């Protein structure tokens, strides 16, 4: 060691410990360049919101409000802007998508993080991620040419519909049972936050399943869906498939972040895997799981191509609240009006109506994010 040491002077001066001037300038340039790149993205977002608000404001102040509510439908080129005509299909599609993606995505996440061994995981996770890489236009085509005629179409007429309704009702009964048990647990004052989370989750599931089951039964009973064309249900199932990987991978990341020491503690107390997953891992990962659902809902409500292709309506639509009919979602309304050579030709406010719908979408996702943040801060079990 001694032969490698540098001969240090008895006293050092500040000059000898200073940064070289050229080096100092380079540091400053790097710093400000990075600041500019950060500011550009913020600026672009701010500009988009500004233009959105400006054009939407024109629409809000100049539109004849009597023409935006209670009319027979969304006919923007004729100045009829019935807002519920495009909001209700958006909600239907999102609801169906979540009924498809929620249980499948969460189930896949629990399996991957708690059950799968390394070998299964090594091919199952990449396979899920490939599903995320399928372009939405491909899924839109799939929804239109396969889901619509084979899954949704037959409901109106034959036994598939009855079987589907029975399965859905069974599903509803199971979630009702879970909800009841969880609510009872919670009421008994055992003060277990997981019981509250479970109650909320299974109640939400119950409502969603009942809504779909009701629509399904109504469809069978009223002999809807006489043709195999696109419908909101077909689009919803397609969007659901699109969002499965989102729910699965974000939830799985959240569960994988829960320390193994908690799983060991639970196993050491005689808990089976399912008990550990539902009473330790899920409550500890709830913020990530809620985030996964919020992201998935935002993605579903903002998804355009699948609903545009398989939703069964374009340009204009009459009001519908049946998942088995064609309908126009907010995104499809914007896309179909803005595409083609005659894009946004119409009366005076047709162009601005697009911005208004865009603003509505923006507010939807913003509200969702705020609700999610509140919910998460309340029920989170931080470890």
């Amino acid at each position, binding site marked *: 060691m001694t032969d490698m040491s540098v001969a240090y002077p008895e006293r050092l001066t500040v000059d000898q410990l200073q940064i070289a001037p050229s080096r100092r300038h380079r540091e400053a340039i790097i710093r400000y360049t990075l600041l500019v790149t950060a500011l550009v993205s913020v600026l672009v977002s701010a500009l988009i919101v500004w233009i959105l608000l400006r054009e939407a404001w024109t629409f809000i102040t100049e539109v004849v409000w009597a023409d935006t509510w209670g009319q027979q439908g969304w006919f923007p080129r004729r100045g009829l802007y019935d807002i519920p005509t495009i909001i209700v299909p958006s909600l239907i599609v999102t609801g169906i998508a979540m009924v498809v993606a929620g249980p499948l995505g969460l189930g896949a996440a629990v399996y991957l993080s708690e059950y799968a*061994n390394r070998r299964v995981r090594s091919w199952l996770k990449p396979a899920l991620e490939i599903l995320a890489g399928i372009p939405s236009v491909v899924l839109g085509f799939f929804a239109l040419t396969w889901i619509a005629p084979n899954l949704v179409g037959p409901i109106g007429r034959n036994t598939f519909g009855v079987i589907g309704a029975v399965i859905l009702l069974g599903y509803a009964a199971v979630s009702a049972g879970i909800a009841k048990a969880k609510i009872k647990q919670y009421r008994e004052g055992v003060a277990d936050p997981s019981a509250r989370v479970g109650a909320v989750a299974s109640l939400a599931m119950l409502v969603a399943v009942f809504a779909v089951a009701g629509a399904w039964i109504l469809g069978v009973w009223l002999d809807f869906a006489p043709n195999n064309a696109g419908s909101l249900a077909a689009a919803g199932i397609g969007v659901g498939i699109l969002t499965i990987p989102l729910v699965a991978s974000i939830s799985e990341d959240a569960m994988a972040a829960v320390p193994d020491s*908690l799983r060991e503690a*639970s196993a050491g107390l*005689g*808990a089976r895997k399912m008990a550990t997953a539902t009473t*330790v891992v899920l409550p500890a990962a709830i913020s990530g799981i809620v985030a996964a659902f919020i992201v998935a809902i935002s993605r579903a409500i903002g998804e355009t191509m699948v609903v545009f292709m398989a939703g069964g309506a374009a340009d204009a639509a009459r009001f519908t609240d049946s998942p088995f009919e064609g309908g126009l979602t907010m995104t499809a309304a914007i896309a179909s009006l803005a595409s083609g050579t005659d894009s946004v030709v119409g009366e005076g406010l047709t162009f601005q109506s697009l911005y208004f719908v865009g603003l509505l979408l923006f507010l939807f996702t913003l509200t969702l994010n705020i609700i999610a943040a509140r919910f998460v801060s309340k029920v989170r079990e931080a470890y």
Partner: protein
Amino acid sequence: MSMTDEAPRLIERPVAAAAEPQAAEPPPAAERDVVFRSHDVNVYYGAFRAVRDVTFDVPKNEIMALIGPSGCGKSTVLRCYNRMNDLIKDARVTGAITYRGTDLYDERVDPVEVRRRIGMVFQKPNPFPKSIYDNVAYGPRVAGQKKGLDDVVESSLRKAALWEEVNDRLNDSALGLSGGQQQRLCIARAIAVGPDVLLMDEPCSALDPIATARIEDLMQEIKQDYTIMIVTHNMQQAARVSDTTAFFTADVRSENDTRTGILVEVDTTQKMFSNPADERTENYVTGRFG
């Protein structure tokens, strides 16, 4: 489930062994009540043999210490007794371990049932991110118990000498407790299941000396109800708390770069620390090695 009714009863089990005097020279293990017998136990992680040919008995209602240098496989051995190694992928146990006369590794044995009888306390306190109450009630709840949880929680916390400190804030998060309190909570949580044996894997290594002393006192108080096995790095701790001691060491083979844990010697703690039979034990307990 049967444990539902059993759990509270086990906790309030009459203290049968209390009268047994702390004789200076207890009879050899074979003649006393034995909870575990292990014979030629080997533990493999994949192709790697972590522990080789371990054979010894664990006497009932005593504290047995497993000591030895790092990497000698003492924690691995401890985790065989509640089938915790099952959770590690590729881990394999050969040889025979019997628990009260039954082969623990019989294919019909459910590891979950084993763990309800053989509780575990870990090196780092690992309370769930739940309330103090929910932590203690966790085991009985997953076993299906719904009624009488308040009593189980109170008696378990009393046994773990934590009740006085937390009875006014049972619904507060367990993570707000100090490290020593968290570890006593983990002991209470293990006791609440109504176990027969407590396995403690270096329970004091993350604690300060005062908290350590409290845990050691606690072990002395509860050993009349439970059989306790403790892994410890701390020889003074082994000498202070245990009745019998097993000394493990690592058999290092430099030619193929393997490190396998082997059992050197088991005897009463008194004998192990004053007059061990094996030279390696003597070197270790006198501080000349490890």
